């Protein structure tokens, strides 16, 4: 047992970090570090820089631009992006549709879609969730009826993240209503967002931001060539996709970056005769979160080691990572809320550019605009992707056998 990073792992981290600091624009990283939303352009800029260096899609098969990395290297990669406030490559392209196409797609589909997804030439969104259905994909309502060499899609998707920017959508739709089991008879279909009959309605979140949408499909015609994998077997693609969505679930790097920022800010936020950082009570709160985070980081590493065939991991620990990870991320937003004090009040749109905030005055309260919105917005972290209550149900059943 040796819990230190190997020399190779450290070199890997150092090289990656210096690449990011040299190549990703500093002002962009600054904005993210201050809690602003990642804008469309920022996604594109970052991902193309990463892709140019072959760093956008490490999780893909090598022949399609992936890296033959160890789970530890992948963890370091994600953590470095997060810890340096570099937006991760768009998950819908890189973590979701890419791997599915690489695994289930035809040679033509791979050749056409994968390079464009890697370079964010196409912007993908996820057509899974539906009103009422929650995360329960099995009782999917959206229909795709085969007519000649086309599918005609009707239905509604919701919580579709950044659909307003999307040029393509990967949709789960029911192609065989007569299937014996509800999850049978579903197909995985690629839909051009420019197709007639698609309407995108924004859903505004508590922070006033536009991040998720409802997407309506009204007689949308899609060539059968856009089917991925076998017809009626889309469930296999979905399961495969969801199983890929784990390694960075704890978002340790993100929380590290936020805590670093909080320490910086506390030193410039005036309080009494000095700064908030002079208040041992506040420092203790920051330190307490850092301790939890260190424990979570070690838990994450144990899971990775287990994936690499090593030791003593809780299983399936990813539910713990989800629960603790969300609690810690949310704790950092509560610390920012306290730091901002009364200056948390002024609101301006999270999409607005830096510099125009009502709060954005020379004496360093510019960041305070994001304290409230981020606190509000991040409540979602313990809700989406299977709420923390669902995660507890999973652990109770799978791990404790209750």
């Amino acid at each position: 047992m040796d819990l230190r990073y190997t020399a190779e792992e450290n070199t890997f981290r150092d090289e990656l970090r210096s690449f990011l600091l040299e190549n990703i624009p500093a002002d962009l990283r600054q904005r993210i570090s201050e809690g602003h939303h990642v804008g469309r352009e920022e996604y594109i800029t970052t991902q193309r820089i990463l892709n140019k260096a072959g760093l956008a899609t490490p999780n893909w098969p090598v022949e399609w631009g992936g890296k033959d990395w160890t789970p530890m290297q992948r963890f370091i990669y994600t953590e470095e992006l997060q810890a340096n406030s570099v937006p991760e490559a768009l998950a819908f392209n890189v973590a979701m549709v890419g791997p599915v196409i690489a695994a289930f797609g035809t040679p033509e589909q791979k050749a056409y879609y994968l390079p464009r997804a890697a370079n964010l030439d196409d912007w993908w969104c996820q057509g899974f969730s539906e009103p009422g259905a929650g995360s329960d994909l099995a009782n999917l309502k959206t229909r795709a009826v085969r007519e000649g060499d086309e599918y005609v899609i009707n239905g509604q998707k919701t919580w579709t993240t950044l659909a307003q920017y999307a040029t393509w959508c990967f949709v789960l739709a029911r192609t065989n209503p007569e299937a014996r089991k509800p999850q049978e008879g579903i197909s995985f279909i690629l839909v051009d967002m420019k197709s007639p009959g698609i309407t995108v309605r924004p859903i505004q979140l508590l922070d006033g931001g536009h991040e998720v949408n409802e997407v309506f499909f009204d007689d949308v015609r899609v060539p059968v060539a856009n089917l991925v994998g076998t017809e009626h077997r889309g469930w296999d693609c979905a399961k495969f996709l969801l199983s890929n969505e784990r390694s960075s679930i704890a978002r340790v790097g993100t929380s590290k970056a936020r805590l670093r920022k909080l320490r910086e800010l506390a030193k410039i936020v005036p309080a009494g005769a000095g700064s908030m950082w002079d208040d041992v009570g506040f420092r203790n709160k920051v330190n307490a979160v850092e301790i939890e985070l260190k424990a979570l980081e070690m838990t994450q590493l144990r899971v990775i080691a287990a994936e690499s065939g090593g030791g003593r991991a809780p299983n399936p620990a990813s539910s713990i990572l989800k629960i603790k990870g969300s609690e810690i991320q949310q704790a950092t937003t509560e610390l920012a809320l306290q730091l901002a004090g009364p200056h948390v009040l002024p609101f301006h749109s999270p999409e607005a550019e830096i510099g125009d905030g009502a709060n954005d005055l020379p004496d360093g309260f510019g960041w305070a605009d994001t304290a409230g919105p981020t606190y509000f917005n991040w409540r979602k972290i313990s809700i989406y992707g299977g709420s923390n209550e669902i995660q507890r149900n999973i652990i109770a059943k799978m791990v404790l056998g209750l």
Partner: protein
Amino acid sequence: MDFEFSDEQRMLRDSVEKLVSPAYDDLGVRTRTAATDPGFSETQWAKFADLGLLGLPFSEEDGGFGGGTVETMIVMEAIGKGLALEPYLAAIVLGGNLVRLAANAAQREELIPQIGDGSMRLAFAHTERQARYDLTDVATTARKTAGGYVLEGDKSIVLSGDSANMLIVSARTSGGRRDADGITLFLVDPKTAGVSRRGFPTQDALRGAAVSLGSVEVPDSAVLGVVGGASAIIEQVSDIAIAALAAEAVGAMAALHALTVEYLKTRKQFGVPIGSFQALQHRAVDMFTALEQARSMELYAAMMATADDRQARRAAVSGAKVQINHSARYVGQQAIQLHGGIGVTIEYRAGHYFRRLTMIENLFGDVDYHMHLVDEAGGMLDAA
């Protein structure tokens, strides 16, 4: 000991609720009203005046309603429950009580009728960037001139300050930045030369303003109260405001909790209402306990906010704010969590309560600030 409302108080509660509850029942109406200046309904404000609510803090001799902290509690609970946009806290609870406690006879005679009929809307320009929650941290200066004063400084967070037509400005006539002595209150018409305001919406869809004072000249008659002696009055009014916010928070929490329980009963998963899941039931119970503990401290704060014993008042009001903040955070967060996805959208009522409760936490002192004051006051055991 008597927890019963008097008949007058019961009548007040009923009429206020009849006025406030329906007004923003429709979130669309609320959002549109909030988005158009002045950010609330002037018709509704006129109705507040008709009910005599705008004269609530003033004595009957001064033409007021003669109400106290309990009457204010009744109004603010309804405002919290109804998500009202009207600037009652800023104009009446803060502005009105400052006038009541500081103004001389002539000023009362001039101001109170206008406040009561709604034509004068006050805002309290006090908080400064460096002050955080410290009520005596005032860097804005007032330099004596022949026949008046010149005000210089910046006020960063002025509640409802964007549309107020009269400001009460705290400024230093003597002493150092954080001294209790040397703070003076001034009546300042925002149209006075040198006053500039930048209004902003707040996270909870209300309004505020940052006010800059650049060589603002005011006459001696603008002085409200004793020169250099405002801090005791500011602390008293802040305590009254904390009791009022406690009531608004309880009104909001009660409505939010009811909304959540209702959702648990109606929303189905796996074919059964999610309210049948024990873990969610117990969460709803813990929310209820937090709400009732907050309600108890709301009453306690109303009882103690104007107590003569300064130390007992300090412990009581600060202790109440701590409880309110803890309960508001727990009830707010759990309400969103139990609602799931719909809880985090602005298209649903729960989130609006959550946002307001969160801002209330950060007004007039957070948990750490008031824990410090409770400690200074020697804890709660000896409080009445």
